[in-house]
């Protein structure tokens, strides 16, 4: 046993040596957060994190994946903080004991985009339910994330609310890409299809091609982001103090102000809405 241990330790040491880094004893103070591609791709973190680092000297390392996968990463204890956008899953994460407490951080909204020819004729609809109904009735191509992300879960709940069973049409006009928001937008652009995206990814997306924003403004398209500290009593290595410092800063007045100040092409991308402390 000890011999095996020795071997493992020295093999790992060799890797660290070769990688030429001090990964085992990180030189700087940092936390790892599991988060969504929408926040990363929007450029928010690149704007926000240096400001937090300036205030606290703590680096924040972001692993950006879909909400479902981010939650899995946090459950295994591979991140200190979870920042995602699917409230029911987040609340379950806390009630199952994986997280300490959930805080609202900010919101923006989802939009429906589609080909400018708009074969389903949904442009300008104020009800997303009616728009989805029209897309389904006309059998127009709709590309779905299909990856268990926050956006995917939201989209499924909207179909359900509209009383449409999309799985019946899976592979026909309903297409699951099983990939991130940007990749799904690329597919929609390539197939002249409709899709649902968060507004920040849409604003930042460069390959809009023939796609246009068609439906927005329905209160059902609300997109809330929440932040949770991973439970340190489940994993002793969780950096609870620094993680909580990050959360406290995000929901504090300075942090909230910074979120509101972030702009994509002159437009506010996220709206801070943490309860006043």
């Amino acid at each position, binding site marked *: 046993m000890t011999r095996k241990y020795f071997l*493992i330790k020295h093999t790992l040491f060799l890797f660290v040596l070769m990688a030429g880094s001090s990964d085992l004893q990180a030189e700087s103070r940092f936390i790892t957060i599991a988060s969504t591609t929408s926040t990363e791709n929007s450029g928010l973190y690149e704007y926000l994190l240096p400001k937090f680092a300036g205030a606290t000297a703590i680096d924040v390392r972001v692993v*950006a994946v879909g909400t479902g996968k981010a939650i899995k990463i946090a459950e*295994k204890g591979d991140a200190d903080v979870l920042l995602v956008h699917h409230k029911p899953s987040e609340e379950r994460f806390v009630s199952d004991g994986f997280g300490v407490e959930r805080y609202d951080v900010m919101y923006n909204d989802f939009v429906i985009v589609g080909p400018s020819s708009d074969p389903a004729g949904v442009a300008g609809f104020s009800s997303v339910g009616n728009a989805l109904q029209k897309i389904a009735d006309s059998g127009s191509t709709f590309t779905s994330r299909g990856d268990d992300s926050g956006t995917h879960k939201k989209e499924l709940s909207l179909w359900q609310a509209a009383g449409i069973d999309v799985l019946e049409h899976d592979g026909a006009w309903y297409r699951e890409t099983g990939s991130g928001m940007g990749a799904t937008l690329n597919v929609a652009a390539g197939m002249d299809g409709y899709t649902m995206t968060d507004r920040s990814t849409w604003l930042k997306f460069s390959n809009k091609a023939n796609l246009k924003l068609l439906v927005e403004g329905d209160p059902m398209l609300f997109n809330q982001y929440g932040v949770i500290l991973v439970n340190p009593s489940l994993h002793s290595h969780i950096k609870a103090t620094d993680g909580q410092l990050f959360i406290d800063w995000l929901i504090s007045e300075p942090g909230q102000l910074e979120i509101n100040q972030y702009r994509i092409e002159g437009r506010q991308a996220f709206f801070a809405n943490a309860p006043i402390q």
Partner: protein
Amino acid sequence: MSTFSSSFSTAVDLVLTANPELAEIVFLSLRVSVSAVLIATLVGMPLGALLAIRRFPGRATIATVLSSLMGLPPVVLGLIVYLLLSRAGPLGEYGLLFTPTAMVMAQTLLVLPIIAALTRQILADLHQHYDEQFRSFRLSGWKGIQTLLWEGRFSLLTALLAGFGRASAEVGAVMIVGGNINHVTRVMTTTIAMETSKGDFSLALALGIILILLVLSVNVLVSLIQAMENEA
């Protein structure tokens, strides 16, 4: 068409302005892939030599398994290394997930079968050639392996190149175990994947051009070494 031309000028711009973020990404890519190839060489070449020369039970089986592992999808390997290094996994206590070290480990495992299998092939051919001389000089096993590795060193560079090509081109494994963290584990291939997903095709393609040029320069360097040897 416009994407191609604009990405080419983007690539030239990035290189000419010595963009610091690009430099960081390129440097990390090289660091990870070169480390992986070096470690895989240290283990894989003696292993390949052993398989080429020594006769022992199970030799053919190991050789076949090694050749098959050359086709292992990087994403599967990434998943395995991820599960090993995750805090919930057997090596979780070292906290290596989402670090460059994790990326080196994944790429080493990816490249090892390639280097070992190619070494075996190259040295097996060479061995036939030298077999009688070895016997007449009564070279022992280990001495024989050393001699063969030395004699075949220029052909073995090809095995090294194949390993380096595989390591620097793969994205599946480093994406999973590295996490594509800005300034920490973001390498060329993960950046290309990310920029593609953002719809920024010209930047993605520009990075692809730079990656190819990089691999090309390594290959040219090796051919020069080989050419010099042939002249000597």
